[in-house]
């Protein structure tokens, strides 16, 4: 809050003295600035084009499945899907004689806030079953270090097969959903916990069926999991299921139609929950993706409210595929990533859409198959792009938070 006031003061001063125009030019290019709304600018040098990612390097991301921020140090953790790199892009892997680029990065990649590559790990190894493509696809040397191997599946990937969302808990542990299982790793990639049936779809209740995201809520040490038509809550240590709820806090009904209903009465069931976010004040935000809807609950599953987001949009994955809360102490804004390549800015209190960032495209500040979202402690947004089977995007972009636009200001 203090930070926001400071920015307003700076902006107001700039206007008064006739200095820099209020809205940075690049911000004007990536968003329609609204009074009282947050202002962003693309960080054109994130991640750093050096080493594996530089001109002489040959690493490139697979589809970006999820992004998470380590709350302890603002490091950025990216879950990628190496198997989605197209056959004419992975020459360095499969056909070195055809070109010097590219190799898919390891599935899990860590950067610092400045965009410097820190480490990467993941893939099948002893002790757990990183499913996609089976064992031995990614290779490790004698010391257990990752050696790039073949990609796993080139096509026909089931949507749940492979890497999904990632989160980092208050202890620095990494929670990754991969092929219907929830895997907890140490920062260095050592497997600590596995919940779920090793890639198979569970045939009994009490385990996730097609989980998409797992988030540990520190205050109760509970793990919140988004799973198809329900939210599941597990004990954070023991992995024991504690409670389950569906839309409006009702009992989930798997027999409900999965047809998308984008007009008329609000659907009574979730339709493919893709992500969760939990606020500092303990509210659980559920991305009800194919209903173009956000629902809000208390941690005990009590329904509080809902908001549709551009409900009439028919983009297949929906307008609510991932969410993140703003970094101010009151978490005034809920950022919602839509597969129509907009990050919509919602007033967290009213769930009204008050602004939008981005559009479809490959230039900086544009998005292509927008799929993932995270916010760091400074309020900067990280946005990740999927690969939809036809085409990529496959970037992680950093949008720098430049402050709150004054209530009376109007962008150019």
């Amino acid at each position, binding site marked *: 809050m203090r930070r926001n006031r400071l920015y307003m003061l700076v902006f107001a001063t700039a206007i008064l003295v006739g200095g820099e125009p209020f809205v940075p030019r*690049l911000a004007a*290019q*990536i*968003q*329609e600035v609204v009074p009282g709304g947050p202002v962003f600018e693309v960080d*054109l040098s994130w991640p750093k*084009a050096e080493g594996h990612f530089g*001109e002489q*390097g*040959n690493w*490139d991301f697979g589809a970006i499945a999820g992004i998470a921020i380590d709350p302890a140090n603002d490091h950025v953790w990216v879950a990628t899907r190496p198997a989605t790199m197209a056959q*004419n*892009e992975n*020459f360095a892997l499969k*056909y070195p*004689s*055809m*070109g*010097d*680029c*590219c190799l898919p990065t390891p599935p899990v990649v860590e950067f610092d806030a400045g965009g410097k590559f820190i480490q990467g790990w993941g893939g099948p190894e002893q002790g757990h079953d990183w499913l996609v493509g089976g064992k031995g696809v990614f290779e490790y040397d004698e010391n257990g270090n990752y050696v790039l191997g073949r990609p796993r599946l080139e096509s026909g990937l089931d949507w749940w097969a492979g890497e999904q969302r990632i989160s980092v808990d208050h202890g620095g542990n990494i929670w990754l959903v991969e092929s219907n299982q929830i895997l907890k790793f140490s920062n260095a990639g050592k497997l600590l916990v596995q919940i779920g049936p090793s890639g198979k779809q569970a045939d009994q209740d009490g385990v996730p069926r097609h989980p998409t995201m797992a988030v540990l809520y520190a205050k109760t040490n509970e793990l919140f999991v988004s799973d198809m038509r329900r939210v599941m809550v597990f004990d954070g240590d023991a992995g024991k299921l504690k409670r389950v709820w569906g839309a409006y806090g009702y009992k989930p009904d798997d027999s409900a139609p999965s047809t998308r209903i984008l007009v008329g009465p609000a659907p009574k069931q979730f339709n493919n929950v893709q992500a969760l976010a939990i606020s500092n004040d303990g509210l659980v935000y559920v991305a009800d993706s194919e209903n173009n809807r956000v629902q809000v609950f208390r941690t005990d599953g009590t329904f509080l409210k809902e908001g549709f987001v551009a409900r009439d*949009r*028919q*983009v297949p994955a929906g307008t609510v595929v991932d969410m993140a809360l703003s970094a101010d102490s009151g978490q005034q804004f809920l950022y919602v990533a839509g597969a*129509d*390549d907009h990050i919509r800015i919602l007033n967290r209190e009213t769930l009204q859409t008050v602004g*939008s*960032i*981005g*559009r*479809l*495209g*490959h*230039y*900086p*500040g*544009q998005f*292509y*198959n927008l799929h993932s979202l995270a916010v760091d402690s400074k309020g900067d947004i990280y946005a990740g*792009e999927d690969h*939809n089977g*036809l*085409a*990529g*995007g*496959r*970037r992680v972009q950093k949008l720098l938070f430049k402050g709150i636009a004054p209530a009376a200001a109007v962008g150019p």
Partner: protein
Amino acid sequence: MKRSILGVLVIIGIASMGARHNLRAQSANVEPTVKAPTFAVDPRWPKMEGNFGVKGNWLFGAIGSIAVDPTNDHVWAFTRPETLRPDEDYALRNPQMADCCVPSPSVLEFDQAGNFIQGWGGWGPDDWISEHGISVDYRGNVWLSGFNQVLKFTRTGKLLLRIGDREHIPDSNESEGLGYPTKAVVYEKTNEVFISDGYVNRRVIVFDADTGKFKRLWGAYGNKPDDAAPWIRVFDGPPPQQFFVPHDIAVSRDGLVYVADRGNNRVQVFHSDGSFVKETFVDRGVRAPSNTVIGVSVSTDERQQFLYVAGADDHLRILNRDTLQIIGSFGRMGYYPGQMMRLHMSAVDSKGNIYTATAGSDGRRIQKFVYKNGSPQS
């Protein structure tokens, strides 16, 4: 005599083969006489404003080619509106599935600063399909090449001249018609248009730039083209005696004609009368599906010291125009600024800045690489 010169050239060609690490090893031993300039991407070019901005809904199709107007340094792109994919043209549907996108016009003009100036041309049965080459001549006329024809337009899109006939595909030795020409460029001193022809034919063909009257044609080494030659890529051994998709063409101020012999990973150089001068392979051993020599443009410094060769492996290689040796390279595959997906063509403005176009099914961008330093830019 001619044969022995050829032998020397072949040796030079072989010496310049190989992957990039070989090149680095070479350059450590042999100090290049001409230092390659360096470039930095301008990530804010072109400006994503107006129809291309957050409230706009225009999107490029694949970009066949890019050109600079020598009279004012404006940048022209020739795009393929029909190539927007079903996951991109949501705003064309009725009802709209999303607020973006619709295809931009086919021919787009930007100024130096990246401001959009105008666009014209659509897609359809009339004049062009499979938009491929664009150039702007010394009088500011716009030359488009595509489906069996070359079209000359005014800046505002008025058709002035048509060479070729969409319905007629000639063989490489016919003087009438074109076989999917890839690029047409005008040489000011003779007011002739030089056409790389093309995907079907294997020749260079020259016409009068005003009347469209046939002047001359030639194949690889300046010989008679032979359409019966095999369409097989070879990455080593004796140089192929025929062009294999002459895919781009450039003419220097001193009247040398540079032909991007795509399927052969080769550049051949001619006098404007068609007599053969020299050739080089460019990383011949790299088997990139769309080849290492796909676009060719000449630097704009007084002596035009550099030849820029666009490779479909997303490297833009810098050659010493005199020796045809590779002395630098920039670019790699990727979606971030300065990276490219299926580099296709390049163009150079009067300040030495390079513009690139990508023509893949994905990652379509035009980008500007700002000339930084090297041998002086006059």
